[in-house]
């Protein structure tokens, strides 16, 4: 501990009121900035669903209007998105399956050639 104190010549008298004020005001301003952002984005969803709430209120009264403020959880959205994606992928798979069973006719292939097969190769060497 003594070594650290020797390495760091701490002089508390160097700290003046102006330094403490700057630190205090600075920290408070950071808080205020983010607190204002918090306020705005806490109220924003209510503001954005305002028209929907009014519409629901006209259609089904207060009970239905409360639905407008209901937020879907991210994981519910993710589950729905996954289900849709899987469904669409499935459709795609069916489509490719049909394409792959289409018959392709080839008049010639070296694999079924009677001229260049292994037995004939020996004969040619002779």
């Amino acid at each position, binding site marked *: 501990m003594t070594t650290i104190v020797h390495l*760091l010549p701490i*002089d508390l008298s*160097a700290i003046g009121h102006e330094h403490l004020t*700057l630190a205090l005001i600075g*920290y408070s301003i*950071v808080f205020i*900035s983010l607190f204002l952002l918090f306020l705005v984005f806490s109220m924003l969803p209510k503001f*954005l669903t305002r028209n929907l709430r009014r519409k629901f209120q006209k259609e089904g009264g207060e009970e239905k209007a409360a639905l407008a403020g209901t937020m879907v959880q*991210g994981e519910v959205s993710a589950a729905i998105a996954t289900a849709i994606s899987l469904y669409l992928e499935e459709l795609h798979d069916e489509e490719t399956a049909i394409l792959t069973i289409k018959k392709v006719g080839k008049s010639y292939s070296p694999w079924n050639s009677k001229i260049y097969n292994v037995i004939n190769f020996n004969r040619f060497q002779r």
Partner: protein
Amino acid sequence: MEGIVRFVENSGFANLTPGHLLMILVGLLFIFFAIRYEYKPLLLVPIGFGILIGNIPFVEHAGLHLGIYEEGSVMNYLYMGVLKGIFPPLIFLGIGAMTDFSPLISNPKLMLLGAAAQLGIFLTYIGAISLGFTNPEAASIGIIGGADGPTAIFLSSKLAPHLIGPIAIAAYSYMALLPLIQTPIMRLLTTKKERRIKMKPPRSVSKLEKILFPVVALLLTGFIAPGSLPLLGMLFLGNLLKESMVTQRLADTAKNTMIDIVTIILGLTIGASTQATTFLTQQSLHIFVLGATAFMFSTAGGVLFAKIMNLFLSTENRINPLIGAAGVSAVPDSALVVQMEGLKADPDNHLIMHAMAPNVAGVIGSAVAAGIMMSFLL
């Protein structure tokens, strides 16, 4: 013969000092940790290599124009981007294009954790004053507590350009060592029961909210702390490019090619700026000690504030105090540390999405803090 003598005199071997050797070792250590343990390799490899380049000794001011501090040298031109504060905003543009603010928008109260975790900046500022640093120097050192390399470089380029090297090296080194610094503090300040708290899953966020966020956040923070505009302006522009979905090409360039180019030049020049002749001073040592303290205080500030918030929140809305530690803006490293620590307490408790909220709020918080310091001290 005279030519040979001059050649030998100009060689690195003739000008080698123990300081150069020490710094070369530090550079090699950076490269080793980056490659072997993958500690922030994208930053530590260019910085480590820069340290090697900056510490190969040569005869300074002999008309060779080699050193980073010699006017007219290539490295000096590249270093201008650091000294004039050009690179940090460009990095912020890329970060903005990469950042997803939806965890923050879905749970806005977590923004306060991003503010609380800036505690280290202001306490370290006071600490630096007590160590004899001047006001602008102390502010530049304090900003290390924001755990944000570009912000630290930006503020020190404005307030204390002569300290950019040690400040940047301290900031990036401690960011690489984040798990070692944060974990003991998180454990010390929380009980096992608190670490097991499961938070409500975040709600889904609409596209309109995502588009409104950068615009509203810029207007709010910009009017409060105009000094933060170069950083936050670019951060929110990058985010708008991403979220608007109509400027995908620009967003892609900002978050890939551009940020990569700037990172290479920034890392290299910051590394090269640590020439033993200017870097190895007692001041640098003090900066390293203060930097570590700043990280610790910031972590503690976030965790303790989360605990205070829990006193006012209902049981179902309670916050896992570990995520307060992610309020330091090292994105996404501190959120990953929180995730790992959360998993240790409860293997089913995934905190990463929740921790990303204070993490990105911390980026905004530290940039605002830098803006405030600039407004006060410039």
